[in-house]
């Protein structure tokens, strides 16, 4: 791996996994996709490797989600985390439930709001998010404000009622 891409790998890998995890909801899958994104970067040698990686990762996650959706058609959103082989301890169950609520809340955002929020959470700057999403730089703050509010509202609402996935 060339030196510059190796640096990007060190600084961006974890953020890319974090970004991908909120899309595929499997740590292993997220890591695999991140690795694949870097492998593609080795071939394409993009000028802005960091931004390029997130674009490629987003596309891969979308393809992955489509494939997964075909495979598991009748799955509730709240139960979609793969079952553990051993019965998890209570804290793990609780963490899983929290994660599922966050996931459900994220699902209620518009795709654009969600994308901006996840990119920001992965460490991208407004400038990078604007380049990534095609939004004006001045619109990023507004979009983030809306996305955060909706996320928190959806999460609180999800805690009160029972949320079952469509389909």
């Amino acid at each position, binding site marked *: 791996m060339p030196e510059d891409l190796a640096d990007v790998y060190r600084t961006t890998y974890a953020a890319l996994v974090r970004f991908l995890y909120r899309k595929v909801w499997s740590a292993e899958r997220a890591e695999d996709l991140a690795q694949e994104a870097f492998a593609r970067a080795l071939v394409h040698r993009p000028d802005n490797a960091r931004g390029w990686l997130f674009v490629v990762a987003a596309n891969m996650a979308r393809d992955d989600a489509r494939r997964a959706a075909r495979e598991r058609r009748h799955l509730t959103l709240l139960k979609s985390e793969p079952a553990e082989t051993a019965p998890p301890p209570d804290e793990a169950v609780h963490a899983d439930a929290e994660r599922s609520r966050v996931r459900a809340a994220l699902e209620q955002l518009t795709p654009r709001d969600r994308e901006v929020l996840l990119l920001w959470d992965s460490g991208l700057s*407004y400038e990078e998010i604007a380049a990534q999403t095609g939004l004006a730089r001045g619109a990023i703050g507004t979009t983030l404000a809306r996305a955060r509010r909706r996320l928190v509202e959806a999460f609180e609402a999800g805690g009160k009622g029972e949320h079952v996935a469509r389909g």
Partner: protein
Amino acid sequence: MSHVDDGTLHAYLDGELPPAEARGLEAHVAECAGCRDRLEEERALIARADELLGLAAPPDRATPPFRAGDLKPPARLWSQVRVPLAWAATVMVALGVGMYLGSGAATGRRDEAVTDRPADVAAVREPPAARPMADTAAGARVEPRGRHRARSTQAPTPSGVAALERANAARIDTVASVGALAERAAPAPGAMAVSQGTPPAAPPVPAPATPLFSIDSARALLGQDPVALPDAPIRSMRREPAIGATIVVLEQALDSATVIELRERPAAMSGLVAGARDAAEERGRFDSLAPDVSRERAAAKRVHWLADSIAVSPRARDKIVRERNHAVLRSGRLLVEISGPLTADSLGKLLETVKPIRP
């Protein structure tokens, strides 16, 4: 300044507001209690959103080493195989040179070829190297060119030693440079002849490249069954090209340390030969294929007569035993020469026991 919108507040809290705007915002918030409250609200919202996203974070794991093997970029395939291929080619070339030299040259001459090699290769390479030097340095042009010409006019001089050296060099160059071979071979056709095929100067050293072949092939070549010592296993059978005929060479092991060689050829090829005297002459004809060892064999022959006629001391006999002796016998239409690390009379007696190999 008017009241601040949510987007600007978030950008400010995210540290993404340009410095000038940030200063303006701070000035406004200092005066406007409403905006100050909203700023704190948004700060709490951001903290809460970050907290929620943290709940849905992947397990914190160390960044693994990059698994480059996951995806083999097809575009890089050639660069990946290029170096191994180059090595393979180098090994093949080295093997080719080794087999070629091994099949042809006598040990002594092989050494000569090796020692000559760097000088010869340098001689081949120097002219192209001298040319750009001559072209770039106009003032120095005359001298290098003149030297180059002197070298090239010197090259075709068909002096015996030079021709041999050239032949050796040409053999090496067949691998390194076909052009160099043509350049060298053209002014020295004799050298070319030496470099091709089995050199006349080469002794009948068993050639590793010479293919082993079957008794049927030997039969076809000799026009009759080849002969061999009964009760001795045949270690190998091969043929060896010779002028005007092909010699069938059999190796037979008498015991673990003693291997004799039977060299057979149709006697008709050599004209009318009969008896030991003619056989000796015939051996000379065999030897003519290998002038280098003919002296050695002549010496051995002298010892052979000595051993036959006079009772020699044990020490002298030891000496005879250590050398490879020869005996020649005409068996039917075959002329058979036996050689091995035995006394000549032993070989002679052995030779009398040869029997045709029946299918």
